[in-house]
């Protein structure tokens, strides 16, 4: 069954930087939300969100994870 990578971002308190805290494999947005919550909720987060990795658009053409993924996706 096909799974999609969702990156997980969270901020500890209001006003804190939104940080990348990990990722989950899931088959849709709903399961991604559940897996992010159950995997990363040992701490209490003010805000947590998930983004499908393929929707992240890198701004510079570096060697970062997202830029590499974008390049491989675009052939």
């Amino acid at each position, binding site marked *: 069954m096909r799974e999609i990578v969702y990156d997980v971002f969270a901020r500890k308190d209001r006003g804190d930087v939104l940080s990348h805290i990990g990722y989950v494999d899931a088959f*849709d947005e709903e*399961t991604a939300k*559940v897996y992010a*919550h*159950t995997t990363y*909720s040992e701490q209490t987060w003010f805000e947590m969100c998930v983004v499908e990795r393929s929707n992240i658009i890198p701004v510079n053409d570096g060697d970062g994870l997202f830029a590499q993924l974008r390049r491989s996706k675009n052939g």
Partner: protein
Amino acid sequence: MADAIDPAALGAEEQSALERLILTLADSKRLMGIRYSDWILGSPSVETGIATSSMTQDEWGHARLLYAMLKELGRDPEPVEHDRETSEYASIAALDEEMQDWAALVAAMALADRAISVMLESFSRGSFEQAQTRVPKMLAEEEFHISLGTAWYRRLAGTDGDARDLLLAATESMLPTLVAWVGADDAPMQLLVGAGVIGPAEERLAAYRDAIRELTALVGVDADGVEASDDWDGSRGRTAGQPSEEAASRARGDLNRALFVE
């Protein structure tokens, strides 16, 4: 929300009925946790295993809170949690045996866990103050269980092979006893409805059928056509049977008896 009642002022029969309700909810939560825990390892992905672990902890936390409500009726929860015979457990029949496959656990997540939540929702809107104050947080945590159960149920129902057949078999096996439990309308339940502790049977059952109708239709089961099983056990407020000895031993904490700190 109904005005709160004083449990101590209830008659003996009403107190007994309230105790039975608390026990069947608490025992069901404890067994639900055990059934989730069976799949912490061996579930379809690391993420799913972590989710079942988290849901296990949720269920056991909820069970502790529910058992603690017995204090309001002058009953010590500790022996209730740790010293009862297996035959005294009032957990729902759908959780008596270990889930033999992932599809059965998904059915339990979507149908049995949901049935417990429907009952708790009705309980939280009633006149028992402990339910009014403690159950809403449980239901908020259960939202994640509902999301996961719904997503997995849809996913397995959408396949063509064994997974769908197993899901259908588990659904058909569980629903009659769940319908009997949610729609229970015997004398103790009627006493509780009369005292405003929980909503009427037809209201609870309608809420349950509404919650599962769309899902079960995906495997060709008409939730409105499911009839309650006719093996009601009024002494425990569940249908016939009992949890497996192994599960009851884990629920009681038999192996940790020497380490209890409370």
